């Protein structure tokens, strides 16, 4: 069965996959500003590579991989290594209740997912939200299936622990 190729331009890709890219970026970086930057960077990179992508599924997989890579670069950036956001700083959130109004009212599950280490967050998002299979996730992240399975298992255990505490 031939796979469809309806995405001819980067604008088509934005129309179709904007939310997917944004959600994945936000899951990774946990704030809107950085998610916005990553969103733009991903689609700007697509301009140079779209002619190499064979079909819509290929475009989707490419966008996910590049979003993850751009998010990793974001973490490696000097500024981000040395700056902690108010939301992440547990000492501030513990000591200062008046700051709580700045934090979003979030669902306990999404909050728990946000607290997971970055590599687990990606897998949880791709498996539970984007509903990719273990094999597809392994191909996208260039990981063995066994590694994906074990990381997913550990992520689930951590989520269960966090949600029990709540």
């Amino acid at each position, binding site marked *: 069965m031939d796979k469809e190729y309806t995405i001819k*331009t*980067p*604008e088509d890709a*934005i129309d179709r996959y*904007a*939310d997917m*890219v*944004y*959600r994945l970026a*936000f*899951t990774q970086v946990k704030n809107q500003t950085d998610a*916005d930057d990553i*969103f*733009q960077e991903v*689609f*700007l990179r*697509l*301009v*140079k590579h779209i002619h190499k992508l064979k079909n819509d599924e290929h475009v989707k997989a490419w966008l996910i991989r590049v979003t993850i890579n751009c998010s990793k670069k974001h973490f490696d950036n000097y500024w981000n290594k040395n700056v902690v956001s108010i939301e992440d700083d547990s000492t501030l959130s513990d000591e200062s209740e008046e700051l709580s109004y700045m934090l979003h009212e*979030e*669902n306990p*599950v*999404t909050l728990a*997912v946000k607290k997971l280490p970055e590599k687990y967050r990606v897998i*949880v*998002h791709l498996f*539970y*939200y984007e509903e990719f299979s273990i094999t597809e996730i392994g191909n996208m992240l260039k990981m063995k299936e066994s590694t994906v399975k074990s990381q997913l298992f550990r992520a689930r255990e951590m*989520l269960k622990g966090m*949600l029990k505490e709540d």
Partner: protein
Amino acid sequence: MQEEYQREMNKLHAPQQLVDSTKELVKQEEKKYKSDVVVMKKRVATIGAIAACFLIACIVVPFILPSNENNESVYLGDSNTLGPVPIEKGEETPNEGLDITELVDYPAEFSEHQVEEILLKDTTIKLKKDEKTGYYKACLIIKDNIFFADSKLKDRELFLDKLEVFIDSKNEDN
């Protein structure tokens, strides 16, 4: 848990302002990329054309340039290598059928007893017939130069006729 997570994620959308500004940026990037690609293609085409011209020149030029070969005739005695002597029409090739080599000294085989010594055209010739093949060969001195004539001739008279022609040609040259 999965449903709850999906429900929460579905509430998150890329801001419309971000989508619009990204589309604008992408359009500008596409224009820039396309012009870069055109420039690159022109460069590659130019380099390719220059390389092709160079290759063609390497192949064609050697055929166009005049040859440096020596057009003079190669005469026996000028070198130790064999070579047919250019002849006028009607004239017999002096060394036709003969394999002539100029030597520094008599070969050892011509010091043996089975060598016949004859006089031909005022030239002393040491004549020998190869026992295995039956072919005739000779050693002779013309104008202080030693020549060795090998052949695939079993006919003595024919061999001597050829030698005569060769001796005449050497004497004419000198």
